[in-house]
């Protein structure tokens, strides 16, 4: 009994202290807000926001509510995080492997890249990509199209937009392709375990993935057209593009800066992971007759991933949180729209800052949960 109590008391005391501290902070905030005539409440979220946003993934204008403005900001933040994570992962893996290359030039270039980009403050890099790009890119009227349909200008990258018909059927065909690929993989594994035969699963998968959706164009009534951006003159010197899809330069600069910066850290994680596997593993695998591809896929990577995943998770979290620097270059993310304009227009600092903090916390925790699940999945399974 005594022994148990000893264990519980410090925990209870800590809990009590935490509750007291939070209670005091809340009480203090309340008293001070009362003194200064500031009200607390979330009623403002349903009010009309009456400001517009440059770039939004969902339908939004100033006649919508602050809650919808919040959603616009959140989606824009998630978009940057998503693109940034993919970009930094692809680049990070390539650079990480390049750092282990026996080729002196490749190895040195990768090393220089890592040392250069990870040692310059991120905000400076964002400014560099944004303002350097703005200075270097041509005005819309001076732009030469790339492949006839892409226009990279100071006002953004303008690309053809897909115009779909019967898009749902196309989607179903992709789902059908994925399901059949899973079935075939399971069948191939059984075949190998039972009879020792190997099927070319990779090629079959790619074939299925291409052929099924293509069939829908021929028989499913699916059609795809392109809306190509066209230059339109507004006045003597101002031009814009009609049609197509415009990607704002703010988004490009931000994802580029975040991607290039975070990739350096991921590259180091990848290098550490691969170097952490002893040479004996590779030699042992080779001695039982595995091909170099199989060695990488079946022996090296499963072990390396265990070292790579946890620190890489940290980098994903950093990237997501760093995306809040967007406000510096006018990319309308959560901080700019919600903790910026909405805060200013409503004056609800405490409410808005708490919502924003909770949002970032939730995003980070979700990424964390996802990566922990993956980490567990690839961990050594003791039998």
């Amino acid at each position, binding site marked *: 009994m005594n022994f148990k109590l000893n264990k519980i008391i410090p925990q209870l005391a800590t809990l009590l202290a935490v509750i007291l501290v939070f209670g005091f902070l809340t009480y203090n905030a309340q008293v001070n807000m009362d*003194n*200064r*005539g*500031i009200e607390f409440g979330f009623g403002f979220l349903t009010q009309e926001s*009456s*400001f*517009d*946003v*440059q770039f939004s993934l969902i339908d939004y204008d*100033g006649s919508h509510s602050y809650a919808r403005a919040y959603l616009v900001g959140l989606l824009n933040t998630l978009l940057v995080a998503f693109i940034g994570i993919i970009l930094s992962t692809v680049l990070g893996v390539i650079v990480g492997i390049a750092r282990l290359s026996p080729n002196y030039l490749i190895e040195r270039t990768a090393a220089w890249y890592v040392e250069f980009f990870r040692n310059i403050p991120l905000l400076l890099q964002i400014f560099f990509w944004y*303002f350097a790009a*703005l*200075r270097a890119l041509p*005005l819309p009227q001076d732009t030469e199209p790339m492949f006839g349909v892409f226009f990279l200008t*100071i*006002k953004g990258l303008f690309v053809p937009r897909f115009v779909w018909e019967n898009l749902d059927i196309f989607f179903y065909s992709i789902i059908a392709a994925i399901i059949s690929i899973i079935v075939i993989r399971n069948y191939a594994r059984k075949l190998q375990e039972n009879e020792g035969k190997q099927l070319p699963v990779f090629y079959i998968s790619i074939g299925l993935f291409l052929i099924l959706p293509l069939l829908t164009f021929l028989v499913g009534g699916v059609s795809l057209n392109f809306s190509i951006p066209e230059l*339109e003159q*507004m*006045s*003597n*010197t*101002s031009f*814009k593009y*009609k049609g197509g899809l415009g990607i704002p*330069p*703010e988004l490009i600069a931000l994802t580029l800066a975040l991607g290039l910066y975070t990739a350096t850290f991921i590259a180091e994680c990848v290098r550490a992971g691969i170097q952490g596997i002893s040479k004996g593993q590779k030699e042992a695998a080779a001695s039982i007759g595995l091909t170099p591809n199989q060695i990488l896929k079946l022996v090296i990577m499963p072990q390396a991933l265990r070292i790579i995943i946890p620190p890489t998770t940290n980098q994903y979290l950093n990237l997501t949180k760093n995306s809040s620097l967007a*406000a*510096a*270059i*006018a990319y*309308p993310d959560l901080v*700019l729209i919600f903790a*910026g*304009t909405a*805060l*200013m*227009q*409503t*004056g609800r*600092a405490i409410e808005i800052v708490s919502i924003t903090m909770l949002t970032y916390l939730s995003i980070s925790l979700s990424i964390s949960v996802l990566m922990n699940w993956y980490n567990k999945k690839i961990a050594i399974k003791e039998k």
Partner: protein
Amino acid sequence: MFKLIKQLTSLATVVAVLFAFTTESMAAKKSKTLKNTQKKGFVRCGVSQGLPGFSNADAAGNWTGVDVDVCRAVAAAVLGDANKVKFTPLSAKERFTALTSGEIDILSRNTTWTLSRDADIGLTFVGVNFYDGQGFMVRKNSGYSSVNDFKDGISACTNLGTTTELNMRDFFNSKGISYEPVTFEKADEVVAAYDAGRCDTYTTDKSGLAAQRIKLSAPDDHIVLPETISKEPLGPVVRQGDSVWEDIVRWSLNVMIEAEEYGVNSANADSMKTSDNPAVKRLVGAEGELGAAFGLDNEWSLRIIKQVGNYGESYKRNIADTGILPDRGPNELWTKGGILYVPPAR
């Protein structure tokens, strides 16, 4: 024994309440903010991060501008020295929080007086020291000569979290034009982006456009369109709930404007003590007991005029002579065709 203690305690409570009451009423007379300011020895003033003519720091860290002069006037009135001001540069986003949280005592930062700001978020506007309106700047060779030339898809650079953002929407909506708002947190970045050609137009208060134009790489290649799309009365703001402090700031500004009206300036203020006009004599503290109402001495207004000057001097020094807006426009006295009109100091 127990009863005695009880009686003593209640007696003590009564005494304490009475005492608290008397000190409370004294404090109310003197104002908490005023008392704190006098104790610290400087006025805490929130200004912009650099808007020439309004609040701008030079290389040596000396702040100048018409907004800065309001704070200096308060310092002259309250502390006797116009230089006893601590300036805090604030972004548009930070400014109200800094004031309501008590980090500064006056916000004099080209801030537009609107109903929702005045009523909603614990602020009180005390007056107007500059009548402004929102305008548009475009490239001279763009062919735009009026806002009526704007077409669908125009991109407009501006500052985040200002009335500008809201006016812009009202304006483009009323014209039925679709537009791309590009909003930055800092004015310098707005200027850089507009300068590079990211936007077709730069919109903010016209005084701001005139001031920021100087920062462009080729100022002469840009013009400000003639139309004004909004009313932007800019003025100093204080926290709600300290009416004495509010009055001190309001009347420090009013005294500067009234001094110009009566021809009192920093050079002739002392000699005006012997003026025949009682209004002038009140202004320089030779008649009446005006300062007593705020708990100040009688020469508070004289110090403002001597150390900071009247409104006309401040305007000339900061806005006209620097070439920002040589023409006073609506910021001329009501007696000279403008709309500057303040209640009488009596």
